[in-house]
């Protein structure tokens, strides 16, 4: 990619982030002039940047937003949720364009229509004083979407004709009837109608809400003559609309079968394709589409299937606008403090000097100096090199360090959207944004944290009425906190909701077959609470579009575990729940204890090792297919490392087993090894190629004697 474009992308991403921050803060406090100025400046600078790369469409869209913000700055109109939403939509569009540019390496063509749709949003908005506009209920579009789940829809329309619209010859119903893809209509009248004697039939007192399965630009164009009376809002796809790649492949295969030009489609083939298609669609929760396919005539089957696949009805999960793709794109470029780069440049210089010194030592050896002199020289150079390499490692790791701000600042948007769609007011508070951690960790936190926050809002936080009855403020507080603690970074999500009912967890776990009733009753509360991390666990009374279907906390634990971290949970009934991630500061440097099995050296992450013990063989008892031993009155499972990794044990067994006791989460286990080695700091290389799928192995590194050290993935081994 052209360096110029690369720089443009980096800058634009920063400006979008800043503008989003300011807009969300402005929504909280519409009187905050500094935030308004900040947002205006960010839009203005973005517009300037678009001009530099000749991206006219982007400049055009941003100019419209800038105009609205400029009017607000000069006191015309007021900051409304609609204006904020419009500006955020504009930024979303910019992010989409940036993503296209990143992929294509050039200014996207055909962006004018998208820009035009943005401009149209702003033309009907904010410039007129907002007070004169009839108030539009917050979240109307989502509300309509929720009331009419059966309707295929990409945009929601709200059309409130002026009182004298009929006089001007407008017929709103005729305009709506002509909307492309109209799939649902609602009409709102006044709460109470006047008696028929007093009714003026030519004063419009109606408002219309409609869903259309067409893109926003098309709908905007159709509504152009009445645009000042209309709001058009693009809708997020329902999670139910998402279709998994596997299902998509199946449907496409049926379509291929129907369109197969080589043979005539036999009635049997058509019916078989229909049956598969209907089943797949139903399994994906697309009942309406399944019905359409079931009812289609044999001739039209292919066409119907094609329209379902291409018509935006079956959207792919990748396009879930709840988290626009561009927001999820990992920042590939890294901005680094110039001091850190200078440190590296200096190190490179010193390493060159050390290399030259080595040449000098070689010369000495050739000249046949005494071995002792040579050894002294070499030792000194080794010490020098060691210092430099350590420093190099530290400097390189420092470059990869990012503040948590990078991930924390991505949450206000999704939280705002969740709050709107759930109708539970909540505020997000963040703390410790400047806490640093390795880039891989900071970037890997978004998905698990989003999941936890979603759960908190969806299941943890009570409805406003319930909160009031319990003496809590109606608006919930979600706190996102990061802190450094020794070699670890803690990240917590707390809510002030209802807390988790442990009894209910036990019930659900039993019902879902995760544990049997007796085990559930014997568990203490902490262990029972931990059941929410079991795969397939879900306590949602009803499945909501937001939190999905119970694939949840186990995925969170796995994601955090993959980064070498652990998840714990703390809850108090009536007061709230805290989910805590304990993460390593860096994923690359790992302190390990080396152990040997046969001729192979393994590394056990040192922070998991609690002790090493020798256990007489007669004290090891078989438990089913496994083995266990008693450690300080606790029965502890014993894993034979050679067996676990599928290796054959070589040599005779000694009378005593050498055992490394490890603790991972709440699990304690013993790992039997042949020999215990030393402690070592290693830089892990992730497994690649053929080794990538190897069970129980986190990565490899090369030891000083040239042997390969395999570092164990305890989570995989113990589960």
């Amino acid at each position: 990619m052209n360096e110029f474009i690369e720089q443009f992308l980096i800058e634009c991403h920063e400006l979008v982030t800043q503008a989003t921050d300011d807009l969300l803060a402005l929504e909280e406090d519409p009187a905050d002039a500094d935030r308004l100025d900040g947002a205006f400046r960010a839009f203005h600078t973005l517009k300037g940047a678009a001009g530099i790369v000749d991206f006219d469409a982007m400049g055009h869209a941003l100019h419209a937003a800038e105009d609205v913000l400029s009017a607000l700055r000069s006191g015309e109109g007021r900051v409304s949720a609609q204006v904020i939403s419009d500006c955020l939509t504009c930024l979303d569009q910019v992010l989409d364009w940036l993503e296209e540019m990143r992929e294509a390496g050039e200014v996207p063509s055909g962006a004018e229509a998208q820009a035009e749709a943005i401009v149209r949003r702003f033309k009907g908005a904010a410039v007129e004083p907002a007070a004169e506009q009839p108030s539009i209920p917050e979240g109307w579009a989502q509300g309509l979407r929720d009331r009419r789940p059966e309707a295929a829809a990409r945009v929601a329309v709200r059309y409130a004709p002026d009182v004298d619209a009929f006089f001007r010859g407008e017929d709103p119903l005729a305009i709506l009837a002509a909307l492309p893809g109209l799939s649902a209509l609602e009409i709102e009248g006044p709460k109470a109608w006047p008696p028929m004697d007093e009714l003026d039939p030519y004063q419009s007192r109606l408002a219309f809400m409609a869903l259309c399965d067409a893109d926003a630009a098309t709908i905007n164009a159709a509504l152009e003559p009445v645009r000042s009376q209309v709001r058009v809002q693009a809708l997020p796809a329902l999670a139910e609309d998402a279709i998994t790649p596997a299902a998509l492949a199946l449907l496409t295969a049926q379509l291929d079968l129907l369109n197969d030009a080589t043979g005539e489609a036999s009635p049997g083939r058509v019916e078989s394709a229909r049956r598969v298609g209907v089943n797949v669609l139903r399994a994906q929760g697309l009942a309406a589409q399944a019905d359409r396919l079931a009812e289609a005539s044999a001739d039209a089957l292919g066409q119907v299937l094609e329209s379902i696949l291409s018509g935006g009805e079956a959207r792919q999960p990748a396009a879930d606008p709840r988290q626009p793709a561009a927001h999820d794109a990992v920042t590939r470029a890294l901005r680094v403090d110039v001091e850190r780069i200078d440190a590296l440049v200096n190190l490179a210089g010193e390493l060159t000097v050390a290399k030259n010194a080595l040449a000098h030592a070689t010369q000495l050896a050739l000249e046949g100096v005494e071995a002792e002199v040579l050894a002294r020289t070499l030792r000194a150079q080794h010490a020098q090199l060691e210092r430099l390499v350590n420093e190099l490692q530290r400097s390189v790791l420092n470059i990869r360090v990012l503040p948590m701000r990078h991930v924390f600042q991505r949450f206000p948007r999704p939280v705002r959207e969740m709050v709107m769609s759930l109708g539970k007011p909540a505020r997000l508070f963040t703390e410790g944004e400047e806490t640093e951690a390795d880039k891989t960790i900071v970037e890997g936190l978004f998905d698990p944290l989003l999941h936890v926050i979603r759960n908190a809002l969806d299941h943890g936080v009570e409805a406003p009425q319930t909160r009031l009855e319990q003496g809590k403020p109606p608006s919930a507080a979600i706190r996102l906190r990061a802190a450094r603690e020794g070699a670890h970074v803690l990240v917590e999500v707390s809510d002030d909701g209802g807390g988790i009912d442990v009894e209910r967890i036990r019930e659900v776990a039993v019902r879902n077959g995760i544990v049997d009733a007796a085990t559930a009753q014997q568990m203490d509360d902490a262990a029972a609470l931990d059941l929410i991390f079991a795969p397939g666990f879900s306590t949602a009374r009803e499945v909501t579009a937001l939190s999905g279907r119970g694939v949840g906390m186990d995925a969170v634990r796995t994601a955090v575990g993959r980064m070498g971290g652990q998840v714990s949970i703390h809850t108090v009934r009536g007061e709230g729940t805290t989910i805590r991630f304990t993460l390593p500061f860096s994923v690359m440097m790992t302190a390990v204890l080396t152990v040997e099995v046969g001729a192979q050296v393994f590394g056990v992450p040192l922070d998991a090792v609690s002790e090493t013990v020798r256990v007489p063989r007669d004290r090891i008892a078989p438990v089913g297919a496994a083995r266990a031993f008693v450690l300080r009155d606790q029965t502890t499972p014993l894993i034979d490392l050679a067996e676990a990794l599928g290796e054959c044990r070589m040599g005779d067994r000694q009378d005593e087993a050498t055992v490394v006791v490890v603790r991972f989460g709440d699990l304690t286990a013993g790992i039997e090894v042949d020999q215990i080695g030393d402690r070592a700091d290693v830089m892990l290389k992730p497994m690649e190629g053929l080794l990538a799928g190897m069970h129980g192995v986190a990565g490899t590194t090369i030891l000083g004697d040239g042997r390969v050290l395999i570092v164990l993935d305890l989570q995989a081994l113990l589960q």
Partner: protein
Amino acid sequence: MSVRRLANGDVELSGDCPSGEAEVLRAMLAETPEAAVDWRGCQSAHTAVVQVLMAHGGPRIGPPGGIFLRRMVEPAINRG
């Protein structure tokens, strides 16, 4: 005539009902608020006419003839 009084006192909408019919319909319904509106023969209706139907809120004999009225407008009136 697209709005007319039937022998049984009910009001019938038929064919296309332009905005001018809104006042006619209103006057008839003001006279006999208990009358039902039979719109089975109605192919299309101006918004002002539909508004009168909503304000009346009395019994309707349907479904209306026009597709848009039948599929979208009648269910919307019934919902609201």
